[in-house]
């Protein structure tokens, strides 16, 4: 129960929200402020995953803009793809996208997903995410900071 005191002392730790960015695309279904994301790791080094986790942590709190990670692509609007696409993950990436109900978008996070990054010439690599599925939003960076990820997500949710 010392936690109650700790909660009182620490208080609010989330950073204040920066100004809303311009809308990159119309939110899927037209409802602003609601975006469910299904994350697929196509073959990344997990650096982008750590940044995504940070983006949803209490410090940056992406949920206040309507974005949420979900457990099943059937519940999602957007596919959040990280990493370069490897041979083994090519078909699962396609299957996941097919399982998402329309209207749906694809968000590629990190340099590897966008243009191959440092793994372009790898023997296990098929290509970038854009080579396998059509990409709607790109977030460059190696890895992109949580603020960049959140700005990109806000450009989709419109909030």
């Amino acid at each position: 129960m010392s936690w109650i005191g700790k909660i009182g002392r620490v208080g609010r730790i989330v950073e204040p929200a920066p100004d809303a960015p311009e809308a990159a695309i119309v939110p899927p279904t037209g409802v602003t402020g609601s975006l469910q994301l299904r994350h697929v790791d196509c073959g990344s080094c997990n650096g982008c995953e750590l940044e995504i986790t940070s983006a949803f942590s209490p410090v940056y709190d992406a949920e206040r803009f309507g974005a949420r990670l979900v457990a099943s692509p059937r519940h999602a609007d957007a596919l959040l793809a990280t990493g370069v696409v490897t041979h083994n993950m090519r078909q699962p990436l396609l299957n996941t996208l097919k399982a998402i109900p329309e209207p749906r978008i694809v968000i590629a996070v990190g340099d590897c997903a966008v243009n191959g990054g440092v793994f372009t010439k790898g023997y296990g690599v098929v290509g970038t995410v854009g080579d396998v599925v059509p990409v709607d939003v790109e977030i460059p960076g190696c890895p992109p900071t949580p603020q960049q990820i959140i700005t990109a997500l806000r450009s989709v949710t419109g909030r």
Partner: protein
Amino acid sequence: MTTTIDASPAAPALGEGPRAARRSIDGPALSGGLTAILGAIGLALGLSVIFGEPRQLRIGWLLPLVGVRLDLDPLGGVFVAATGAVAIAVGIYAVGYARREHWARFPLVTLPLFVAGMLLVPAAGSVTTFLLAWELMAATSLILVLSEHRRKEVRCAGVFYAVMTQLGFVFILIALVVLSAAGGGDAFTTIEANVDNLTQGPRNAIFLLTVLGFGSKAGLLPLHAWLPKAHPEAPSPVSALMSAAMVNMGIYGIIRIDLQLLAPGPHWWGLTLMIFGAVSAVFGVLQASVATDLKQLLAYSTTENMGLITLALGAATLLTSSGAPTVAAIALTAALLHLLSHAAFKTLGFLAAGSVLAATGLRDLDKLGGLARRMPVTTVMFGIAALGASGLPLGAGFVSEWLLLQSLIHAPHDSITLVALAMPLSVGAVALTTGLGIAAMVKAFGVGFLARPRSAAAEAAREAPKSMLAGMTLAAAACVVFAIAPVLLSPTLQRVLAVLPRVGGDSAGPQIETILRLPGVAGSISPGLLAAALVIAILLALALARWGRRHRPPVAVTPLWASGADSLSPRMQYTATSFAEPLQRVFDDILRPDTNVEVTHFAESQYLVERVSYRTLMADPVEQRFYTPVVQAVTSWAQLVRRAHTGSVHLYLAYGAAGLLIVLLVAR
């Protein structure tokens, strides 16, 4: 135990093929038709006695010394009517089933005889007639259980069933002989006139013997073990008759002897019935929830429901003896209504299971599945039966269970400590039974009929022929009546209650109209209005889901989400064993399954697994811990007695003379 039957419908069973083709009489149609006609006669007779005058029949010459006496009053009438109704549905069903399974002559002839025996038992008016009708019923049912006697499991089940039936019969025989000796006559009317002369000693003895003997026929613990062996191995129409009509005869015996003649008795009578009932109910449903054989699951469910009925009868007796006749009448109504609704949904369940068995050759839930698209009518029928068995609203068993719970919670506050302790524990037992029953029925329906087929036989299933569907539809109609309009049974129940004045006093029981109201206590429910309201609410929900429709892209039919893999094989679905595994873990101490896990590694590497084999064997713990020692004791006793069999004829003559001398001395 899980068994798979590999009966191929194409091969003529029991060598009757060529002869059947030459015969011009359609055996199955004759047998099924006769059964249905007998059932109709029984139903009409029962209803006429319930709403009219009691009937009598005397055939003095049929039996030496005593003759045959048939006395039908409303209590017997309701049992005759229930048996008749079940027989109509089963008879029509058996026409198609016997044709498909190529029944031999013997079972075809015995089926109407079995129904006749069951119709005679509640109509018997004297002890001798009762016992003879009982044995007729037992013998014919044994013959029918052994229909597929070429299989070893059937023979084992038949022997087990024969021994336990006769053991129960011995108890009943002793009890009824004591009753007629103390009551001064053979006829039930004579006994009823003299019953007040019986002292407490014989009363207690008769009570215990009848509870054990009739309880064994009803499938109550501890003499229940024949039920989950015999009912699955019998052909499905016979299983339906046995589970929905024959076990009722055990309850009839308890009601006739213990509630009509000898009631109310001391408090421990009601308590004994409640304990037997509660233990049977919980044990039966527990075994059902972990059973993987579809028919064995339904058989254990019969034990459960008979336990609930006995619990209700015990509550009625206990409440009467502790001075609350109004509430006792509610409990008695609950028992009778549950008996009737159980007959309806258990018939439907076994007929649907028989349809599945005939189409796939499988009883094993672990290998079934996907039948909803291949056998849609059977699926709907089994769904109605499962809903009834689970005691949920809109199911056939809901109203009777509601009545039972109401009677248990309305026991008066100033009653004795025994009642104050027994009622909460009973509510707990009934609630646990209901919960586990829901789990068992969800497993049976979901794993057996939904999703995709788990074996080639299930994939090749085709719908049953029309006569089987017709029989199932009749039973389903009865289930729907019990679920939505139990008002139709109200006059019947009130008249039967009037014949049982010793339990429940002069109370008229619950008023069952569109809204069911309880007399003397506050409580009401309306199953019909509830069903209508639920349908309206579901339509409202569907209307809500249409909001935003114009923004939606067109509907898509897609493969299942297989977590990214390309496809899911049907073997990746949950089986009945895996579905029940959490429950099995929780009740591990009671069930004590025998589990064996075998891991085969690759020859090249100890760290890679080639195959894992999991085997679990669920034996009946009562059988293991209670019957086996008893059987061993009896066997060693028999070995001792063998020493008297020397082989000398002179010694045997001496034994006979000595026995005769003793009998003459005693009878003097």
